């Protein structure tokens, strides 16, 4: 079936640097995407979303880019902090359900 996947399973960055987490999706008909952050022992936390009629959306320290031509999403985190250490998932909204990839582990080195 359709799936959403991630390129890099683990990303290590130095505190203060920018982080970029990538995601590929396979359903070209998808029109809504969400990034979630999941800390150890907790449920996924909404970070930012984007609809297919946009190619960029900015939040506080985070930016999501959508390239529909190559079916690719990215999450950029500016000035990465130790509290950003977590697993990051992109999810594709498919009707009533979210389709998640396996996730990317972000490790922030102090």
């Amino acid at each position, binding site marked *: 079936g359709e799936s959403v996947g991630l390129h890099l399973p683990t990303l290590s960055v130095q505190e203060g640097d920018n982080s970029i987490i990538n995601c590929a999706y396979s359903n070209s008909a998808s029109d*809504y995407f*969400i990034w*979630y952050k999941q800390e150890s*022992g*907790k*449920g*996924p*936390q*909404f970070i930012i*979303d984007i609809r297919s009629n946009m190619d960029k959306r900015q939040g506080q320290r985070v930016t999501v880019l959508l390239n529909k031509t190559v079916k690719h999403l990215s999450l950029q985190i500016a000035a990465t902090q130790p509290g950003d250490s977590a697993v990051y*998932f992109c*999810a594709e*909204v498919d*009707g*009533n*359900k*979210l*389709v*998640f*990839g*396996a*996730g990317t582990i972000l490790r922030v080195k102090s």
Partner: protein
Amino acid sequence: DAGVTQSPTHLIKTRGQQVTLRCSPKSGHDTVSWYQQALGQGPQFIFQYYEEEERQRGNFPDRFSGHQFPNYSSELNVNALLLGDSALYLCASSFLRLAEETQYFGPGTRLLVL
């Protein structure tokens, strides 16, 4: 503004037993979705409830069943537990009546089947 709550936080069962997990949606939300998250994987959709009816179901056996109450809270029941049912069970809520697709998650219930 109360977020999504789930109970219990942890649970240990043995094979063959039955379990009931509970979820209260975020204040104002009317739709509850359940997901299973195995260790090291992304959440997998189990089913979604709206107006006390199951709207959509993922690829899970009939051992997994659910219910939604008039106050929008929900239960997930799993019968005849298998070792492979050990996972984090997540509940997410959304506001379908306003056509809001964003789902907000609770902290999950960690189930261990021995």
